[in-house]
């Protein structure tokens, strides 16, 4: 009788200790994973934009220098993809802006792979170009906030990471 009671007490103890331990563990995991995503997205868009700014106007084969280094949306996406290990390509959305005009509006990376139009569209030396990236982040931390905004059928709430980089065309 006493043993059973004591065993019951340790179960309760374990439950009481376990919940915060799980919380701490999951939080550590998720914050780490979140930081990783944060760095990755920021790095990936930066690489993508840098790639585009050194393949700008003067790369155009129709210009008199007949250079052949113009790049397409798909090629820029490829750079982002290589730099952004672990990005969910079906759900990560890219927006390409050049000279104030939106050339690709929130298309998934998968869709961008098939976009063989040249970019930047507003392609002058010194023109500001920008890539925005939004990727969903499905976090287990949402377990602790069941009421947090859901992601449709998914059990875990989705928040999103947004990263953006803006630079002027160099060449």
């Amino acid at each position, binding site marked *: 009788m006493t043993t059973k009671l004591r065993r019951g007490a340790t179960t309760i103890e374990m439950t009481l200790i376990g919940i915060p331990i799980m919380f701490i563990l999951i939080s550590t995991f998720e914050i*780490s*994973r979140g*930081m*990783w995503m944060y760095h990755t997205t920021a790095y990936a868009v930066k690489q993508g934009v840098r790639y585009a700014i050194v393949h700008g106007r003067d790369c155009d084969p129709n210009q008199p220098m007949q250079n052949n280094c113009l790049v397409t949306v798909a090629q820029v996406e490829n750079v982002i993809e290589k730099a952004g290990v672990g990005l969910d390509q079906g759900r990560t959305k890219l927006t390409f802006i050049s000279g104030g*005009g939106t050339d690709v509006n929130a298309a998934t990376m998968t869709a961008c792979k098939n976009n063989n139009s040249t970019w930047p569209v507003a392609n002058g030396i010194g023109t500001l170009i920008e890539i925005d990236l939004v990727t969903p982040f499905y976090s287990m931390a949402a377990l602790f906030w069941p009421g947090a905004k859901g992601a449709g059928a998914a059990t875990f709430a989705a928040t999103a990471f947004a990263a953006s980089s803006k630079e002027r065309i160099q060449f």
Partner: protein
Amino acid sequence: MNELQNRDRQGADKRQGGQAIVLVTLALFAMFGLMGLAVDLGWSFFLQRSAQSAADAAALGAVQEAKNRLGASFASWTCPGSPGATDAWCTSGAAIVDCTTVSNTSSNLYNGCRYAVSNGFDHTNNVRQTVNIRASDSTTLPALPATASGTPLGVKGIVYWVTVSTVQTVPQIFSSMLGNTTGTISAIATAAIVSSVLPGSFYGMNMRGDCMGGSSCGKDIDIGGNTTISAPGAIVLSSPCTGSGAGCAGQAISTGGNSLVDAKSSSVIVNGSINTVAGQNYQPTPAQLGTAKDFLDPTRGLHEPPIMANSQGGGIKGCAIPGGVISGNVTLGPYNYFSYTGFSNGNPIPDGRPITITGNATFDPTSTACDNGSAGAIKGTTGAEESGTFKSFFIWGGMNVTGSVNFSAGQFFLVGQNPNQSGGTVFSLDKATVTDTASSSSGGTMLIFTAPGYPGMDIQSAVIAGAVENGLKQGSVDMGKGNGTSIQLLGVTKSTSSNPTGLPSDLSNYSGVALWMDRRNSIDYYNPDPGCTAAAGNSQCGTIDPTRSAPQATSGEMGANYCPSNDCSGSAVMHFGPGDIKNFDVKGVIYMPRGAYYLAEHGNGNASLNSATQFIGGGYKTPSGNGIDLTLTSPTNPFLVTINALIQ
């Protein structure tokens, strides 16, 4: 039994207590792994950005120093065998060299390595950091520069390039628990001195106090009526005027009536701010996007285009035309053309009249004809037949065309006008047809509007007995006096691999130039030519007034003699209209110095200059009610500037 139960109980407690430790211990591996991702990877990303910045700075620093050393003389530059402190340095055979071995402080690569140090890559003290550098010209090793994996960059027109790669090993904190004690990050950057297309379609260079015809001061575009200026590239306006103040009659753009300035998908770039006020129409809204250097003359650093015929070492033969009139169908070779009346000691006496073409004249660089030997045309006996690949033609006293003229590959110097004979113009088209049979492979055509005193011109006048240059002055250009003028020209084209026989390298810096107005033909004090800082007589400048900082027209040369619509500015005017210009097709660049301007007026209804042209000049002005539209399309033969740029 009780004891046993107690032991059991204690054992159970211990087992249960150990669960959390085991759980946490096991979880620690996963935790460290994930924290490794977050912390170590994050740190690596940060370091990678630093490495990229260091590589960018090093490559650009080395190239900038090289460009400073080489000045503007890149035409056929290759890596020097034993470079000095004024050369650009290459790595031997484009070998990849560690910056620690670049110790010669007179090398520009040493500068590059120092830039890496300044940007956090201290290869001299930090054993974890390495900076590699390689540099060469574009002709020695055509497969370079290349990406890290060896793919060529596909960029032509590179004079000199520097590739820098930075590598750093990064000790890991959390990841080392899973066996990764170090990580490696790297970055690569290539900068080059490279040809680049001048980005703008229209450059208005007038500044505060620069006027167009005594009015429109401080304006770069002053249009009215229904006039539209539209351009696919940027419209760059240098005036800092924001509406009022000394030297400003208004803002840099003045669009009266329903006139419109439309940069299409590009920008209207202004030096001063523009107040958006009612009645001012532009698209997009002008913005201060540039820095000071963007508002300087795009041709700065270049002398006046050199005379190709001077490579003969002397003057080419003269061709004297009686009264200057050329009628009928004639072919004209590359000579010094001038009008004459009468003879002195058997030599024709230059009379200062313009060459007037009433028939069909064809300038042919391969011809040796001087007006086909028609009555009275006399080819001189002194001077040489021109032997260069790209020929020069000199038309002393300017040219009036009422018939048709065909240019082909070469430079055409319209040398001065006699105010008593020409009404102030060095080139006048009246119901004329101008065609151009030059092709990009033959080098294109360049018309230069100038006066005696142009650098190297005296060798040419010396072959003519009698003072051909007497009384000739700078003049304006009149395109389309009467209705029906048609102009088709191809500016000079820079040689690329697809047209290797094109332009001589001496003219390669003038790519695209179709019409060039002598910089002396402006009353403005500005100096786009670094060779003209010396006193009068400097061979790069022509004859200049030593009291002035820049070569320019002497006061009164221009204005009193040529005042279209009572417009006497004292600087050159390129006057479009008032006749109907039925065709305007100039594939190239029209250059006039700051202060000189375009005046586009149309007598009856709409007219348009619709062409793949880049306009560089002081400004563009139309009368308030009957201007000519300027509809520029994407330039097919643009001006090329040599820039430093990151290309990888």
